[in-house]
């Protein structure tokens, strides 16, 4: 996807990413993490605000920095980098609340054609995974990268 996004930093295993949201409230550091789950090759995607003074991370803080589209595009870029390194993994994501899940859904729906080009996308509805469809409210999302990939670049 070729959308406006922020510069990403990561440690060498590409499990933890950091970027700076730069919006109406100033510069806000954000952390993205891919955590192993109890299912083999399934990782949980989470991201949140990093307090630059204490280093504490909170995924419930709503920054309202006026750049949510750019933030989501940056998270998607991290998913690309992660799944470029770990090719056979699934990435599970859900919001920390219903509103946040809807925000993710809006982002996926808006760019579904581009995302489907590179990922198989599923939504969780009534306790079952379904191929992602527009205009359906899901409670969680699961993606797996399709083969045929370009490499990410590290600096």
């Amino acid at each position, binding site marked *: 996807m070729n959308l406006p996004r922020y510069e990403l930093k990561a*440690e060498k295993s590409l499990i933890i990413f950091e970027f700076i949201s730069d919006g109406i409230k100033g510069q806000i550091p954000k952390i993205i993490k891919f*955590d192993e789950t109890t299912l083999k090759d399934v990782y949980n995607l989470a991201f949140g605000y990093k307090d630059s003074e204490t280093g504490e991370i909170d995924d419930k803080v709503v920054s309202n920095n006026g750049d949510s589209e750019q933030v989501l595009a940056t998270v998607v870029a991290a998913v690309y980098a992660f799944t470029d390194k770990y090719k056979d993994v699934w990435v599970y994501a859900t919001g920390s609340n219903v509103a946040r899940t809807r925000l993710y859904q809006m982002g996926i729906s808006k760019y579904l054609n581009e995302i489907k080009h590179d990922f198989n996308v599923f939504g969780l509805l009534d306790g079952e995974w379904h191929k992602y469809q527009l205009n359906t409210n899901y409670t969680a999302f699961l993606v797996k990268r399709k083969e045929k990939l*370009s490499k990410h670049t590290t600096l």
Partner: protein
Amino acid sequence: MTTTIKKLNSNNIPIVRIDNKLESLKNKPIFQQKVNKANEVLRTVGLPKK
């Protein structure tokens, strides 16, 4: 920042700068509550059927 973003935007491939300082967060359970919730859901629903 603007120049960097413009440069990034002209490139469809994610560019990731390696920062070893982030290593310190790697083994911290910073999103443990979300991971626990994910484990609970995945235990029940598993993965999509092929």
